[in-house]
């Protein structure tokens, strides 16, 4: 219990630091700002994932896998904008791939999680 309280405090700290970074973003160069967001998100991810029990590791993988399909947003931007044929073909394929990743990932995770039952 003590450990989990400590972990919560750490998560809390990370979230506050994230908020701080956003507030002070005024003068920072875009790259530094993006790197800051990246680094803090990695720390937050490690804090959360460490607390996920081994029983749920497979759904965690398929679920986080679906989240990594967020590239879909980039694919939509690349396809929908008027960028010429070649970029359009690349973007179209990217949208198909990423959507399979996203939709398939969330559906299969839901299917797995629905099987986890307890009588208590």
């Amino acid at each position, binding site marked *: 219990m003590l450990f989990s309280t400590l972990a919560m405090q750490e998560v809390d700290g990370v979230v506050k630091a994230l908020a701080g970074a956003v507030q002070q973003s005024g003068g920072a160069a*875009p*790259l530094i700002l*993006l790197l800051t*967001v*990246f680094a803090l*998100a*990695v*720390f937050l*991810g490690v804090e*959360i*994932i*460490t607390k996920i029990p081994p*029983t*749920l590791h*497979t*759904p*965690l*993988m*398929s679920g986080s*896998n*679906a*989240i*990594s*399909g*967020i*590239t*879909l947003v*980039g*694919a*939509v*931007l*690349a396809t*929908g*904008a008027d*960028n*010429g044929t*070649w*970029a*359009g073909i690349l*973007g*179209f*394929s*990217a949208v*198909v*791939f990423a*959507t*399979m990743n996203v*939709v*398939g990932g969330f*559906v*299969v*995770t839901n299917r*797995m*999680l*629905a*099987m*986890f*039952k*307890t*009588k208590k």
Partner: protein
Amino acid sequence: MSPDLIDLSYLLAASLFIIGLKGLTKPRTAVRGNLLGALAMLIAVVATMLDQNIVSVTGLLIAIGIGSIAGTILALKIEMTAMPQLVALFNGLGGGASVLVAGAFLAGREFSERVTSGAGFADVLTATAASGLIGAVTLSGSLVAFAKLQELKFVKDVSFPGQKLVNLLLTVGAIGLGWMLVTQPEHAQLWYWVMAGVALGLGVLLVISIGGADMPVVIALLNSYSGLAASATGFVLNNNLLIIAGALVGASGLVLTRIMCNAMNRSLGAVLFGTMKSGGSSLSDDEVYTSVKSTSADEVAMMLEVSQTVLIVPGYGMAVAQAQHAVRDLTNLLLNRDVDVQFGIHPVAGRMPGHMNVLLAEADIDYDRLKEMDEVNSMMDQVDVAIVLGANDVVNPLARTDPDSPIAGMPIIDVDKARTVIVVKRSLSPGFAGIANPLFAADNALMLFGDGKQAISEITKAFDDA
């Protein structure tokens, strides 16, 4: 939709991803957590489609339709035993999408305008190269992992002398080509696709030499890469949502990779380069297996009748034999007769993290009965009968006793300390580590030779008849 409103939607989506992942920390809240993640994705995609630069929605909707249908069919048709393959395949698709998005960026109008204007943008180019490189390694590595898990005939464990050197050269080559991309943006597309090709080759070579039991590490690592590739794409497009979501997945894969490596007492480098200590005490099978006793389903049933606590330790063999439903029948029967049944699950049992848990959950076994290694080890002296089903190296006591063994120091489930151990196995053949297992010849151990599913069904029948 104004850019500010789109950014706000992205912030909402990023928050929902985080809350969704937090939901996965408990089985009770996990379904909702996953749905929150899906909702976040929906919000992000809809907001993006309302971006003013999006002019051709029809093509987009067709592509999303194709992807959704294909993904849903795969997700609904797949057998639970084939889950590692499916995750590998989805990983590869994510990596492939990153390669294509970065490629589309280089082919796009905004990019060519920036090249003509001569504005410096080395940071964006670096991110593009990273996105293509990591994405391509993820794509080809995942496809090889898929082929291996699916046991496709044309993929064999390939290792050749100088493989490490070739891998190193390919890595340096891919980074060098990425550097050319950054320094010569006017030829960016050429350098990009050559680099992606080299990275595809690297991904194949990195995974092709890795054996079956090391797959949990590889799958976790590729999962991490697919996240990092998405993050890199975020740097290309200056998009915080991609960076945050990608970083969360990258972190998730890294945490799982570390857990898997610790559970095998091997370093990540040792797994990736396929180095495994061989030899050890060099006892031959004949020396170890001098006093192996075999038993029958009837005999096991009689032992179960006088037991109070039974521990079942499943391994990859249970998945191969599709024995999880037979195990459920036996478990229910034992519970009806007031025999306590617990499951001891080693972190690397199976072909991906949590593989055994999913199979047992599929067979409707209460997840409260699925215990972690440390928990069952501390209750081992109260176990009357431990049934090892299709597991080998993870219950090999040599890990504790022989410091020269390839698995020395690997944490194992101490079934040898239970009163009686029943090992259900086809033969005395070694596990992945390629060493004999003294457990099979221990005084308190009995071998029940045969197919896992059939053997468990026979025990159930014999127990029910008695």
